[in-house]
């Protein structure tokens, strides 16, 4: 058993985007605040802080999680992936990010980092999604700018191109 005492700061370490990171926090600190305030990883955004808007969505051991509904101490020893970790291998945008740009799938960008992380997990579980499945997945995110149409197009396009690449 491991005990983290109230009101005191404890070391918390996990693998963030492939790098070992450590910070200090009280047991009650949310993962969203820990990422932003302790580790300076401000790509993860915070909207509602009760699980509804999806802005804070990250991957924990490859599965999507609301960082606002996760305590930092719960991530101890885990693999955490955030939008900062998405790239094409050469420091540029990855295919999903590029498709978002092409299809105007973002305007202010507040919702985008959460949606991108969800998509990465979704496309792994559902490599051949239809539009209905994409829209169902997107029901876990609120976007106040785009009206979702561009987001749906971008995701469907990337699903198709990743499928092609994996068959090639």
């Amino acid at each position, binding site marked *: *058993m*491991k*005990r*983290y*005492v*109230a*009101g005191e700061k404890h070391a918390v370490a996990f693998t963030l985007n492939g790098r070992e990171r450590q910070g200090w*926090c*009280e*047991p*009650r*600190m*949310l993962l969203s*605040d820990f990422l932003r*305030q*302790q580790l300076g990883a401000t790509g993860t955004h915070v909207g509602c*802080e*009760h*699980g509804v808007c*999806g802005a804070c*969505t990250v991957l924990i051991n490859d*599965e*999507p*999680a*609301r960082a*606002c*509904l*996760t*305590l930092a*101490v*719960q991530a*101890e020893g885990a693999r955490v992936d955030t939008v900062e970790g998405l790239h094409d291998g050469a420091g540029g945008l990855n295919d999903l990010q590029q498709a978002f740009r092409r299809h105007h799938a973002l305007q202010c960008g507040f919702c985008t980092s959460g949606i991108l992380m*969800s998509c990465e*997990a*979704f496309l792994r*579980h559902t490599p051949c999604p239809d539009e209905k499945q994409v829209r*169902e*997945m997107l*029901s*876990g*995110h609120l976007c106040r700018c785009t009206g979702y149409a561009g987001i749906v197009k971008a995701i469907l396009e990337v699903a198709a191109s990743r499928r092609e690449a994996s068959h090639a």
Partner: protein
Amino acid sequence: MDGADGGWCVKPPVFDYLRVDTVDEAVELLAKYGEDARVLAGGQSLLPMLNMRLAQPRVLIDITRCAGLDRISAGGALEVGAAVTQAALERRGTLQAESPLLARALPHISHFQVRSRGTVCGSIAHAEPSAELPLVLAALNGSVSLRSRKGRRELGAGAFFTGMLATARRADELVEAVRFPLAGQGERQGFSEFSLRHGDFAVVALAASVTPARIRLAVGGVDDRPRVVEWPRLSGSALDDGLNELAWSLDARNDPHASARQRRQLVRRLGRELIGVLCA
């Protein structure tokens, strides 16, 4: 952002966080702290309550890394351990054959991004009146395995759910697993839900199991807990009368999502449709 005391901003109230490795440790701690402790499973109901400070436990006991709790097994029933997420059950390849009702109901729970963390047992332990899993457990006449330092006991769904967010679980007990009976030969199961948007809590949800001999119908979202009726194979106006009587027997709520009257009407309409399909 820095807090006024130069520290960091945090939302939840203070608590000790204890991460246990075994069920024995968990029940020891529950025996010690009782009402002052909360089990932390997926956190998808508990963390919102902490963030809004609707709950202020002294101790959180995180059971998600307990050995053995992440198991799903199918003997006479589908037994789901306390650390199994809703997503893990949803992805089980044999679920459609084992429990068509669960397979139909699970996608209605919240969103992909929440089911990946939320547990099956956590939803049952939380006992939200509109939640899908308590409804399914009640419809199938399933049961809950409770474990304390003193031993184990098994409660049927009817005895377990006692009201709005209230159950017969004692403060020193862990919900160790829940059991959903497997679908029988010749049994047909169905699910129907009305909610404002996909993934929202149900305004009214119905779960039904029909065999050549009887109809079992469970209603969620209307009363303070899932309500179940069992009828012979009613049809036509007898079915309408049965549904009408059922609708009036429920303590229907008015809330911002729907009036009591709308809820009763949904019970009649959705009930008619669902049973019509299953008895066809």
